[in-house]
């Protein structure tokens, strides 16, 4: 019975996360999905994954969402949708019906005679997966650094351009007979556009 309540709560939180009109509410409903899913994982006999899901899914990812929403703001965009609601619901009902017809009822086929421990499976049998995870993490960090680096360079270019604008009149006044623009010609409009791009 408690499994049914947990499953209903998880699906309800997921639907609320999709239908919420504010992004912050969506992120909090998503954290609810992760928390309830971690309880389900624990009840399925996977406590390690339940802990990881609770800390990463309901903790770290929610903080990331709140951080991104606070930077980007809330656009709303609820008045226009890609598909009509009835068509989307019909497609989803068709998909869920076909998938449920294929996999339900799910029966246990019996416990393996001597299953290895989680640590040995993860570090020995699935060592390639661990390598892929490391590569994924480094790729994510590189993507993040590249995306944020672009913001810093454009800001630095703007600051540099502002500093040049401020220093140019003072150099013209303090010069001893030589016009500073004679030594360093002004960039052409095409060069200015390149710098700003």
């Amino acid at each position, binding site marked *: 019975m408690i499994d049914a309540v947990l499953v209903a709560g998880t699906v309800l939180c997921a639907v609320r996360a999709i239908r919420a009109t504010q992004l912050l509410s969506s992120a909090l409903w998503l954290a609810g999905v992760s928390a309830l899913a971690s309880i389900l994982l624990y009840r399925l006999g996977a406590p390690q994954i339940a802990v990881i899901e609770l800390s990463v899914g309901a903790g770290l990812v929610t903080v990331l969402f709140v951080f991104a929403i606070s930077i980007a703001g809330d656009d709303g965009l609820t008045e226009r949708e890609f598909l009509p609601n009835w068509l989307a619901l019909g497609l989803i009902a068709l*998909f869920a019906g076909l998938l449920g017809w294929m996999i339900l009822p799910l029966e246990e086929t019996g416990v393996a005679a001597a299953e290895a421990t989680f640590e040995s499976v993860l570090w020995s049998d699935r060592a390639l*997966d661990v390598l892929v995870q490391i590569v994924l993490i480094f790729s994510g960090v590189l993507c993040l650094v590249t995306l944020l680096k672009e913001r810093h360079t454009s800001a630095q270019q703007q600051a540099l351009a502002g500093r040049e604008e401020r220093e140019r009149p003072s150099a013209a006044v303090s010069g001893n007979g030589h016009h500073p623009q004679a030594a360093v010609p002004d960039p052409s409009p095409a060069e200015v556009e390149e710098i700003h791009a």
Partner: protein
Amino acid sequence: MSALNWVTLGVLGLLGAGLYGLLITRNLIKVVIALQILVKGALLALVAAGQASGQINLGQSLAVTVIVADTVVAVVGLALAVQVKRLVGTLDVKALSNLRG
């Protein structure tokens, strides 16, 4: 009805909710949220399949990979959404179709 079947129904519900979100939403951050819900369904399905086949530890080790990939996707997707908002001024997916021929 056994716990495994309830979880399988939950997997169907999560996958359906995630696909529904991908079909109707135009907000970039909402798209990432819908992807997260989809991956939660896949995660539950992996562990339930491991439990059903008597190889729960194999299912757990696969689920770790899914969690790592899911988190990286969320981080990169949110960073892209922030940059799109900064450059285009909106989070609307339709606004990104300027290069369409």
